């Protein structure tokens, strides 16, 4: 009994470790810009305000970036999940030459230094006219999300009792019914979990976002944060940047709160176990 209490105390310490910087971010985002002065800045605001959020949402630099971030991340995630789904099915169910090769290639891509590509991609994208477009970011996101998607989904697919499909057909279901009523419900959690992890990956990117965009046509929020200015040049941009940071953190927090179990299962099964 005594020891179990100590584990709980240790757990509380870890929760504080994880959440303390978030409290700081929230506090900064609700400070009036006049709180940011060289002097003795405090942890909490002198007065709490939501004006920074209003200001951020009134600037097209941010709203455009938010639309870009959401659109690009969702499309790249969808494409990665579809492409990876075919591969994961093949890896989990079929015997064929090239299986090991694909898994090794995925491993190589996962370790690939992305900064080594910004130069050639920058040059190539300008050549074929997709520099500073959604497509120009979707392509590298899709590519670098694929290893994670393939591993996670094939790990989930391996655990599916595929015989049930035949069992359902023996019981009189058509092939389509067996697939829709038996396989889809079994596979859906794995596909969905993979989509969450892939979305996190695309949502997080900064290197490609600043290298392959130049205007708000395709600039995502992480890249826009680096360009953000205050309401006027005499004001500190800090509370605005933090307000924007809070906004891009909200989807992460919602997904984590709703799907904690799945994300943990996805991370641990996909990355370490086969």
């Amino acid at each position, binding site marked *: 009994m005594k020891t179990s209490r100590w584990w*709980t105390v240790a757990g509380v310490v870890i929760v504080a470790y994880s959440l303390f*910087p978030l409290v700081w971010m929230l506090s900064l985002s609700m400070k009036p810009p006049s709180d940011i002065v060289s002097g003795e800045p*405090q942890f909490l605001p002198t007065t709490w305000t939501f004006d920074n959020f209003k200001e951020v949402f009134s600037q097209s630099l941010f709203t455009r970036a938010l639309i870009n971030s959401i659109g690009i991340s969702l499309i790249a995630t969808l494409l990665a999940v579809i492409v990876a789904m075919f591969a994961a099915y*093949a890896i989990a169910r079929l015997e064929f030459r090239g299986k090991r090769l694909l898994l090794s290639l995925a491993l190589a891509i996962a370790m690939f230094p992305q900064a080594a590509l910004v130069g050639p991609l920058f040059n190539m994208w300008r050549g074929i006219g997709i520099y500073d477009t959604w497509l120009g970011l979707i392509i590298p996101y899709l590519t670098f999300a*694929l290893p994670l998607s393939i591993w996670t989904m*094939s790990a989930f697919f391996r655990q599916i009792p595929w015989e049930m499909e035949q069992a359902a057909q023996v019981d009189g279901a058509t092939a389509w019914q067996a697939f829709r009523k038996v396989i889809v419900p079994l596979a859906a959690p794995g596909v969905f979990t993979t989509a969450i992890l892939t979305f996190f990956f695309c949502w997080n990117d900064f290197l490609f976002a600043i290298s392959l965009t130049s205007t708000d046509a395709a600039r995502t929020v992480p890249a826009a944060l680096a360009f953000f200015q205050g309401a006027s040049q005499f004001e500190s941009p800090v509370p605005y940047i933090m307000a924007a940071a809070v906004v891009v953190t909200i989807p992460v927090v919602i997904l984590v709160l709703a799907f904690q179990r799945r994300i943990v299962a996805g991370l641990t099964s996909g990355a370490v176990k086969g």
Partner: protein
Amino acid sequence: MSTATKEPKVVVSERVKGERRLGLWLTAPSFVVMILVTAYPLAYAVVLSLFNYRLTDPGGREFVGLNNYWVILRDAVWWNDFMTTLIITVVTVAIELVIGFMFAYVMLRIIRGRGPLRTAILIPYGIVTVVSAFIWRYAFALDSGFVNQWFGLTDFNWFGDRWSALFVICLSEIWKTTPFISLLLLAGLVQVPEDMQEAAKVDGATAWQRLVKVTLPNMKAAIMVALLFRTLDAWRIFDNPFVMTRGANNTETISFLAYRQNVTLVNLGMGSAISVVLFLSVVAIAWVFVKGFKTDLSQVRGDS
């Protein structure tokens, strides 16, 4: 597999052929995307790296052979960035491994509040790296930060000196990525057989002996995989130094140098050479892990 090699000539049935064909068709899109978007640009970078080529002066493009590489390897900037990257990698990975293991152990043993703990620990994992960098930068900055007030440092400028700036960069990196490493370690930790622990306990082993002699050896594979992934991830660090210092005060990393030469200075010849050297350095690190430390990657790849 071993049986197949002994037999004279196995007649491959139509079913097996069909399965092989379907397998190739289903994996073809993945192959095509991954190769087209990485191998082709990399090959292009290798070609460009042999030229003296600035986008601002396209007419002055000329073949210079391996000269760009020679220039890089004799340049103080490269070695400075190399050392910065090396220091960040060694420090963050070492600290993350220790803290991550402690976190994993708590996640394994805790009974009350297991769900909330895992939820909380996923927040740093999921948060955008740039956001993490801004959070920590503003915590230490002179005009916005609370750190100097809390620790009585008055007007100490954290970003005015190489080592204190690297400290903040490492702190942000460690905060954000320790949860990931702890989840990988947790996956290894749950595979350590509980009865071995009990047996060691009965034999009178202390908690420390059980950790070093039973737990750690049994999760060696998970530890090595976590180490490899985090080492390569740290080696590619870019976001944190960019947001915190923009590379000032000797805090530029190799990825940052590649970005600066290619995108900011559009010095594509030299930039490509740096890209190629960066790629080779990653290959070298992976090689050391696989051959030198005998890291078993079959589990990661998912070979059955």
